[in-house]
């Protein structure tokens, strides 16, 4: 069945759902479409703060998420692994 072809190439239901939603938004009447298209694009809004002020235009949302990931890695997992390694006796 063609409806399961997407699953065979490794797409998830989330990706399937996104594609369907895109088609529906694109089929709305022109006056409704403008607002609908806006909400399709932004899923996360991230603002970076420096010294108590929001810093704009420095990072895109995707870059900011990468930045957060990196910091979580540096500040949490790496010290954790150090801590674990120090307590391991070989």
């Amino acid at each position: 069945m063609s409806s399961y072809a997407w699953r065979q190439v490794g797409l998830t239901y989330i990706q399937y759902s996104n594609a369907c939603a895109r088609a529906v938004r694109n089929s709305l009447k022109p006056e409704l479409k403008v607002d609908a298209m806006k909400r399709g694009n932004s899923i996360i809004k991230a603002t970076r703060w420096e010294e108590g002020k929001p810093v704009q235009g420095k990072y895109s949302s995707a870059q900011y998420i990468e930045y957060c990931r990196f910091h979580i890695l540096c500040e949490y997992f790496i010290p954790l692994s150090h801590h674990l390694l120090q307590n391991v006796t070989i």
Partner: protein
Amino acid sequence: MANLIRRSARIPSLIGQCSRVSSLQHQQLRGYAEAVGISFSMASPNKVFFKDETIKQVNVPTINGVFGILPQHVPTLAVLQPGVVSVVVNDSETKNIFASSGSLTVNPDGSVHILAEEACELSDLDVNEAREGMTKAQHARDAAVEATDKAEFQIEVDAYEAILKSVETKS
């Protein structure tokens, strides 16, 4: 004497058992006609269509096929396919809403929840926009090289087909 006391102590539990049996019989006698209805909620991220409203029946297109839900349905989870969710509010009123995709939950208490990623009234859909989108998606699918891109555009084509079908059957 001790025996009598022990027996009389059992009386409350016996009464309890009897009442349980009779309530069970009452439940078995109950049919669809007496059932009060379904507590139904349906929403998309930008709009709430139903909130704990009592309805008679709802027909939902899922990726395993369309199914109708009546009161006291067995608890179920399913994911939606693009199509028309038709809600039979009462004998004289049926609401049709187009849902792109999302999830359906039939809870143990009999309430039904539908969460759609994108949903709208049938009157909000535009045939020409859908036709145009479908042609574009078909071209993109035919031009795609990667299997995943091809599959993604095929999903869009199928969605446009469902949209066109629902709009054309309405008119």
